[in-house]
């Protein structure tokens, strides 16, 4: 047992030492270094086809359509084998080819290529698969990071979405910097950053909770409503009579049930928000709904005129129906 532990410790240290000293670089990734002999044998058998597809996809004298088809075929030979070519072609002068390469690289960044936490390396010891996987990761993410500086918005957007969706710290930091410097519109930045984890971007996005623009406030409040920033969403959006109504409605669908109750007694709650919050409240309470709760809701709706609004009339009838049921089942 002691020997195993010591050995494991030694290997953890050794693996960290390997990565620290080797300074893995994107260029280190070679699909022909796959540790699985069946895979390398398959690639060797298909080397002619692979080389031909790489040549066609990189041939600038050919049409973008042909080059893109070659890229797709290369990906079908084996996803890994296309990666070095994709990393090259994201900078191609043809925007179609570059976009396709960026899109395929972005797709490759998902699922298979989440970066392995350092804590996990210990268990993998001197596993050649680890080194292969880490090199692949470096290739993909270094390429995507580079794309954030591409002059073409379409290509840049693909990288921004992908890096955010992977909660890539370097990528997210760069997107925030670029948003502050005006490279992205606020709406663009929000659409990218709401794909990342709130622990990385929550602080930055929370400043938009003061926005009066529904296009900014709605997605941000929806995003932060289920995070540690939910208190701010409650105070600045849900309960704030000056906030855009769309954002208040969206947040009402996600906020804790107790936070909805003040909306029913507040004299300022607009009818449309009252209605959507009520639907959410009743749905969540389900069979736990009590007669005093319904009476409270009925009390709140008195401020609206059922004769003037079909919505109010409908809500009132619904609530009165609940009261009748309570009395019938007494």
């Amino acid at each position: 047992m002691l020997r195993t532990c010591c050995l494991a410790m030694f290997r953890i240290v050794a693996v960290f030492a390997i990565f620290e000293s080797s300074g893995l670089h994107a260029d280190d990734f070679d699909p022909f270094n796959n540790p699985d002999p069946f895979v390398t044998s398959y690639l060797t058998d298909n080397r002619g086809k692979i080389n031909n597809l790489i040549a066609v996809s990189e041939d600038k004298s050919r049409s973008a359509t042909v080059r893109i088809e070659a890229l797709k075929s290369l990906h079908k030979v084996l996803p890994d084998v296309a990666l070095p070519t994709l990393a090259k072609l994201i900078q191609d002068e043809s925007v179609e080819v570059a976009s396709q390469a960026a899109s395929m690289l972005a797709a490759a960044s998902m699922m298979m290529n989440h970066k392995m936490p350092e804590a996990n390396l210990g268990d993998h010891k001197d596993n050649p698969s680890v080194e292969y996987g880490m090199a692949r990761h470096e290739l993909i993410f270094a390429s995507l990071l580079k794309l954030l500086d591409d002059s073409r918005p379409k290509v840049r957007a693909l990288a921004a979405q992908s890096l955010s969706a992977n909660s890539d710290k370097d990528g997210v930091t760069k997107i925030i910097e670029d948003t502050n410097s005006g490279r992205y519109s606020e709406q663009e930045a929000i659409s990218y950053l709401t794909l990342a984890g709130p622990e990385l971007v929550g602080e930055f996005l929370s400043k938009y909770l003061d926005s009066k623009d529904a296009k900014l406030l709605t997605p941000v409040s929806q995003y932060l409503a289920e995070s540690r920033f939910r208190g701010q969403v409650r105070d600045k959006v849900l309960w704030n009579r000056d906030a855009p109504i769309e954002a208040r409605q969206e947040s009402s669908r996600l906020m804790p049930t107790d936070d909805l109750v003040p909306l029913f007694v507040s004299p300022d709650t607009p009818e449309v928000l009252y209605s959507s919050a009520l639907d959410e409240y009743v749905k969540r309470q389900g069979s736990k709904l009590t007669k005093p709760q319904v009476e409270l809701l009925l009390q709140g709706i008195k401020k609206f005129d059922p004769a003037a609004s079909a919505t109010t009339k409908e809500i009132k009838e619904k609530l009165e129906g609940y009261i009748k049921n309570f009395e019938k089942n007494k």
Partner: protein
Amino acid sequence: MKANLLVVLLIALLFVPPALGQVQVELEVNTTQDVKDDYVCWSPQEARIRVTGSASDLNVNLSSSQRSAMGKQGEVWFEENTGVIPTWVSFSPVDTLSLILPSNGDWVSFWVAGKRSSSGNLMPDDLTPAVHGKDTEIIVASSAGTELLRHAVMVRIRKNAEELTDGERDRFLQALRTFHDIDNIGTLAHSSGYVKYASAHGQSFFMGIHNSPAFPPWHRTMLLSLERELQAIDPSVALPYWKFDALAPKLFTNRFIGVVSGGSQIVQFDVSNPLDGWRMPSEASLQSWNTGNPLPVSDQSLRRADNAATSNPDVDLSTVLGQSSYSVMRQQLEGNYHNDAHNHIGGFLASLTSPRDPLFYLLHANVDRAWLAWQRKEEAFDSANIVHYFPQGQFDVLTSTLHQGSYVRDSQWPWNLAGGNQGTPQASDDWPNVVFGLSAGITNVGPSMIPLVSESIDFMNSLGSGNPHNYSYDDQPFRK
């Protein structure tokens, strides 16, 4: 006069075969008395029958109840058990099986399976296994045609989600919801219902279940484990699959798996859908759930970036089926087929804890089905063959280059209850030992309580050397 009559009657009774009215025929599917395991699929399962109280051997015929006029009922067929386990080559079932039941009450064994054409084009009937629970009966009749017994079974098959009836869909969703709502069960403080699967997947993401040979078998066991948990709630439920190489307009509705619209990532459900209000813990809390932390709080709404009702992932099954070795097939299956489906939907499905979204199981059932389709095409059911599975052997802490659970004779975490040791000396990052569902619902059909990678490979027992796991896909027959 009366006394004489009594004597005559008494004498007559002496000549009546003993206990004629007490002849009893018993039938057990999966050779257990427990009817909880009386569910069959395309692969043959052992059953047995006997007669008691009969003075002489009894000739009986076994047949299946016929499909109803609605055509919605399963049928079964049979093969005599000669002591040799039927393989996907040898299995030759008949609609009516004649057996002789010895008068001494000994059991007579036979094989029973859901009826399905052997190969070639699908027949319409093949796509209509049972939908109403145990709506199929094994009918036992004497050779004279007198019905002696009806024994209820269900031909329970994993189907394309697009082809479920409303009832099947609702039972599946309700079972999922019931399982989701389980918090702490039993004596294990950390034993939660649905949440534990998402956490196990997230925490073992880098321990060899992705980017690794273990990807197909690990997920195969995971699906079966969750399915057994659902079946413990409602035994008529089978996991449907999302056939993501085609549009799925029935699946992506608010009555089924939910929809996103209007740029919002929050998945919407109909108020009558059991999945309405589905909440899961954050990824961060699931990833840090360990022996020292309490159960994570489920406070996150389900999020996706897209549906697949009007556009579907651009995947090509032929790239998977076209490979001749497991290693290359696995890379195509995971890297192309599977990843593209996850990426298409995004949101929770693009995270390490993707099983937070119940669509995960339908997606992976389709991946599992694709692996089976490749196995059938390449006849790759032999776990000892390196072309059918690689690597062979067993993990060795001193010499192995892959993670434990990758080698064919390895046991699979977390079902092996070996704890979530993440390879570091800190106990604080060890995932708690939590009981998973392989023991639930059906107790006597594979895999083992501590499942091995090898058991996943011939899970239908196509070669007759393992133990059938008792599940099938509608379009993947048992017979070659």
